[in-house]
């Protein structure tokens, strides 16, 4: 069954993907000037909890530009490092894709909240934390291993694609790209 039958990425999404491969989508110096969200504020938007929530802090969120940057503490004490892999701890690539998806969802939900505040729509009563969901992983590339210690920065850009949203995202450690992924959601 052809779920996404080779539909090419739009020019905008392609440009974002190329930018995500080169460096931070939201540079640190820009993020440094923006208000941050702590984990409690993130939980007010996203339904993920506990170990499944892979964002500790939002470093910058810009719904108008469709951009978000978030951080995750790569504490060497996290259980995942003991298991993946014993003697050679690496933060799993699939968790990086999940973190990118969560950053994209957070941005979609915050954008939706802003729209509804500006223009309430009584017909659109979808339960807020579940108003959006990811549906496809269209592409992913793992560039370099993420070792324990320090902070992972997760950047994502969201663009509309018909009834879908495309999330173009990246994970970085110490300014270097460790993974890039493109997901879609509704």
């Amino acid at each position, binding site marked *: *069954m*052809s*779920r*996404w*039958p080779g*539909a090419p990425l739009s020019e905008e999404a392609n440009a974002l993907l190329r930018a995500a491969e080169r460096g931070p989508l939201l540079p640190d110096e820009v993020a440094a000037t923006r208000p941050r969200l702590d984990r409690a504020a993130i939980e007010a938007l996203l339904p993920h909890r506990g170990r499944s929530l892979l964002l500790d802090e939002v470093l910058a969120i810009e719904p108008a530009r469709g951009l978000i940057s978030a951080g995750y503490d790569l504490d060497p004490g996290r259980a995942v490092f003991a298991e993946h892999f014993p003697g050679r701890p690496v933060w799993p690539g699939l968790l990086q894709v999940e973190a990118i998806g969560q950053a994209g969802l957070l941005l979609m939900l915050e954008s939706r909240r802003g729209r509804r505040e500006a223009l309430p*729509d009584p*017909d*659109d009563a979808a339960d807020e934390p579940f108003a959006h969901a990811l*549906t496809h992983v269209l592409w992913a590339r793992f560039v370099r291993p993420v070792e324990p210690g320090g902070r992972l920065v997760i950047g994502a850009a969201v663009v509309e*694609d*018909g*009834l*879908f949203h495309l999330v173009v995202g990246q994970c970085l450690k110490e300014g270097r790209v460790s993974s890039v992924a493109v997901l879609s959601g*509704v």
Partner: protein
Amino acid sequence: MTREEMFAVVKANMQEIVEAAKGRDILETDSMRDIGADSLEIVEVVSRSMKQLRIKVPRTELTKAENLKDLLDLFERSAASIPTPPDR
């Protein structure tokens, strides 16, 4: 763009995306769900059809469509609301 042309676009997308629709006659009175499309396939068919037809129907309106006739009614109304460029 006539209603028949819009229906042809929707049917072509259904044939491509919905396994159960392949090689089957599709009528306006059919609903995609009855034909066997899951919710994600329905979103894909509608999203792709709107892009191809260059129309945009709000999600809240789309959820009210119970069959392809309702969907085509929405598409027709949306297409009619797009101003025609003046003749040169």
